[in-house]
């Protein structure tokens, strides 16, 4: 490079004049979608080898290619009265997606370049490699130092989510019939306006090959389902109650074991009770949070705060930074001694679990908080060295073939108490408080300090006993204050593996799914608001 970075920057002020620059790939070397050919599965390895060879010849010092197929299915059934006749209408909706494509990532001249395409052909792969290398070379003069990657092994291996019953093999008709039975049960309860049943499936078939020698095939399957009852007082109030078995990396067996039939009527009755429940009296109260609720609190306050890319300022323009700066690693107290939290991508049935990440790093478990002290970051290969670490913790993921892989949250879970503490034990220690189950509204600042969470349902605790239902509850706190106020956790028998989907991050935004296993937990003297 002829110019230093400073000289280059100094000449960029009048950049507009240079913007007439041409696109990299002339149209004639692009393949028209109308000329596409079907790609047999055995050609995938051949195309990957071709891409890596082309990248090397173009001067890339590193290259990887992901050739991925995604399938999703969303089946919903909404049951509500006809506006005119009042008769019960069951309204089905079925959407399936099936997408296939590849993404090539290179390091050339010390900078990253990426190109992803939906057409998987030799010509398209060649064009994409050329494009990715040209993007890297365009950006190289701006890099302060060349991209560095943490060491990684070379793997030729495969991983598959253990699935007992393929959820895509259960017919759409059977799924709708299943939801119709549940919705009808909900609608038997007077004052229920509508019932909604949802089944959502995702399968990612990923092939990864890198210039460092890995050839990895993976198939990851996610199954989720939920059932919601809604009660409406026209023009005044709407209250819903949801039964949501934890979304899992597993098959249809997860829906069957959820015993939906035992819960349909219960959630209908609780939705009606919620509509009639008195508003909470705001003030300082103790909280007992069920796993179905606490999982999201863990996600927002402890999951996002331990992302290294946020700590480095890489997400400052949208997702934000974090209060857990590198100088606090190994020293800063976030929680009480009870708070032991791990990151992992290996725990069975957890949504982030797979064999290797999108950097080709073997997945594993690692600590984030030990006895309340901040003890680790979620990392990827090009950032580990920035905090003096030699290996990545395997948290790289892209949500599509067309997305750039970057640091995403793994499963982040809270260890249970070592003693056999029950939910009743936690509640019995509360004189005046609230028991919260399920997800409501949630919001947290861009450095992960100030949060405010609602819930799906709330019960008053008085004198160590769970009493009447309350409405319009939210609690507001600061992450370290809140977790240091944690003085009780349930034991192993109370621990649940809470799955969370649709976590957004990045520019352009990508989605991610992970699990936040936890026991029920007790927090002392938290600020409770009324959100009427």
């Amino acid at each position, binding site marked *: 490079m002829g110019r230093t970075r400073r000289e280059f920057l100094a000449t960029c002020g009048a950049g507009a004049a240079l913007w007439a620059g041409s*696109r990299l790939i002339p149209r004639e070397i692009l393949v028209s979608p109308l000329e596409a050919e079907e790609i047999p599965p055995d050609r995938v390895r051949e195309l990957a080898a071709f891409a890596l060879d082309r990248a090397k010849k173009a001067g890339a010092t590193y290259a990887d290619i992901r050739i991925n197929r995604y399938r999703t299915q969303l089946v919903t059934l909404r049951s509500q009265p006809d506006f*005119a006749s009042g008769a019960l209408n069951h309204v089905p909706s079925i959407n399936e997606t099936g997408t296939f494509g590849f993404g090539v990532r290179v390091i050339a001249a010390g900078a990253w370049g990426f190109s992803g395409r939906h057409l998987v052909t030799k010509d398209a792969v060649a064009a994409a490699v050329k494009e990715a290398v040209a993007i890297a070379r365009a950006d190289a003069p701006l890099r302060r130092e060349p991209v560095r990657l943490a060491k990684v092994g070379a793997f030729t291996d495969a991983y598959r989510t253990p699935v007992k019953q393929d959820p895509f093999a259960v017919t759409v008709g059977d799924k709708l019939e299943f939801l119709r039975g549940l919705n009808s049960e909900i609608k038997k309860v007077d004052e229920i306006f509508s019932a909604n049943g949802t089944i959502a499936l995702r399968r990612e078939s990923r092939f990864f090959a890198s210039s460092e020698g890995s050839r990895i095939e993976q198939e990851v399957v996610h199954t989720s389902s939920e059932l919601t009852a809604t009660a409406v007082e026209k023009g005044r109030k*709407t209250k819903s109650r949801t039964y949501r078995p934890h979304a899992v990396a597993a098959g249809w067996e997860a829906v069957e074991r959820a015993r939906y039939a035992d819960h349909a009527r219960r959630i209908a009755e609780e939705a009606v009770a919620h509509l009639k429940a008195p508003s909470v009296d705001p003030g300082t109260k103790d909280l007992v949070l069920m796993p179905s609720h606490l999982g999201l609190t863990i996600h927002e306050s402890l999951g996002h705060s331990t992302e290294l890319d946020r700590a480095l300022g890489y997400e400052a323009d*949208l997702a934000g930074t974090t209060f857990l700066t590198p100088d606090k690693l190994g020293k800063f107290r976030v929680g009480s001694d009870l708070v032991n939290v791990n990151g992992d991508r290996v725990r069975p049935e957890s949504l982030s679990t797979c064999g290797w990440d999108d950097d080709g790093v073997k997945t594993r478990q690692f600590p984030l908080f030990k006895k309340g002290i901040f003890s680790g970051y979620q990392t990827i290969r090009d950032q580990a060295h920035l905090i003096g670490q030699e290996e990545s913790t395997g948290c790289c993921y892209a949500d599509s073939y*067309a997305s750039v892989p970057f640091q995403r949250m793994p499963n982040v879970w809270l260890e249970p108490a070592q003693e056999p503490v029950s939910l009743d034990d936690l509640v019995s220690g509360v004189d005046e408080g609230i028991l919260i189950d399920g997800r409501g509204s949630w919001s947290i600042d861009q450095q992960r300090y*100030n949060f405010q969470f609602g819930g799906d349902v709330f019960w008053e605790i008085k004198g160590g006993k769970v009493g009447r239902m309350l409405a319009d509850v939210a609690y507001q706190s600061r992450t370290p204050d809140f977790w240091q106020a944690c003085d009780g956790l349930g034991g192993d028998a109370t621990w649940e593996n809470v799955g969370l989907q649709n976590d957004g991050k990045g520019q352009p935004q990508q989605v991610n799914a992970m699990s936040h296993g936890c026991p029920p937990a007790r927090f002392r003297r938290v600020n409770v608001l009324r959100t009427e």
Partner: protein
Amino acid sequence: MATLTAKEARALADRILSFSRVEECEVTIEARESAHTRFAASDVTTAGIATTLALTITSRKRGKSGTVQVSETDPASLERAVRRSEEILGLAPESPEWVEELGPQTYPAIEAFDAATAAAGPEMRRDGAAAAIEAARGASLAASGFFSTDITSSAIANRKGLFGFQRATEASFSTTMRTPDGTGSGWAGRTATRLADLKTGEIAATAAKKALASAKPKDLEPGRYTVLLEPQAVADLLGTMIGGLQARAADEGRSVFSKPGGGNRVGEKVFAEMVTLRSDPFDARVPGRPWIVPLGFGGGGGGAFGAGAQNQGLPAARVTWVEKGTLRNLSVDRYWARKTNAPPVPYPGSLILEGGSGTLDDLVASCTRGLIVTRFWYIRTLNPQTLQQTGLTRDGVWLVEKGKIVAPVNNFRFNDGPATLLRNVEAMSASVRAGRMVVPAVRARDFNMASRSDAV
């Protein structure tokens, strides 16, 4: 540029429709080329380009429907996709809310394409990043940000001969700059059809100025304040209003525009006299599609409570939602139109809040005491029947006293919302594009800043 031409889109749609064996089959095509450069910690981080294609095929027969979305375009894959949509249709029960497929439509021409934006390469995006990095360095700040250029070719077609095509460009640049001591952060950004309208240097200078001016904020207690919301903050708050403007939700008693006991509030005064809220797909500042596109993934039943899916393919039209504070229209999908004997009304693709004149500076000059808010973050609805929300201020809040900015102050969490904001509005500047909206800066009284936020 590399996205589909009208001729290619029509050929692709015709090929898909040729495989159809049922009465009704509709295809939408979205071919997109999205290129971006990210920068952070005053360095370029990642950059890339993604060429994607989404072909959405819906087969329908007497109230039953099946929808699949695919990306592969070889004939065997396309035929499989059509067969799968028909297979799903065969397994689904009839939807009581079905509407018949549209016949041929006449779509207006909406200019949304800029050749210079489509021709932009990675060097141009790098230079934009470099300008921000340089501006930050000159002020001892750390810059992060995002520069993207997109080209989208969209088409809609069905077996009855309906066809529409549009090619559009969009360029977006945003940057956040932070002071080294971590006490100051400033954001600025813009989205436009034409790259030339972004003015990246101006955006970088604004972000730098805000970062410096927000450093070492003064402690201010939570409470009710007059707020001076910059256009981005107004757009952030109005985001949930888009979903709230539905006749069905109002008629069913589930919305802020429901009457207690039943019916909707069309014809009632709902906001301050100066509030006029409308949608205009022909407005060059934020051009829309020539046809209606539903929110989310269109399909047979329209999701949880329907989101205008049945209006897909109707010609785009201007709608006035609120005129001088009075609710004039709510969106009505074709099913709800049949149920309530009303004409269909398009779902708002974006909102235009009619402004006044002048700029934020004029609103400041006439303010006795208030808070300037740059933008909001992490907004969630607490109550759909009041549109009460919670969220946080971010990237620059300042206290105004007697017409002058006196000090930067800490961030806040608010518990308030767009419905109360539009009732309490006192003055508005001229409107400008902010994200997908066109809105003014707004001064409004009694905004509830509920707690302090330590975040910067």
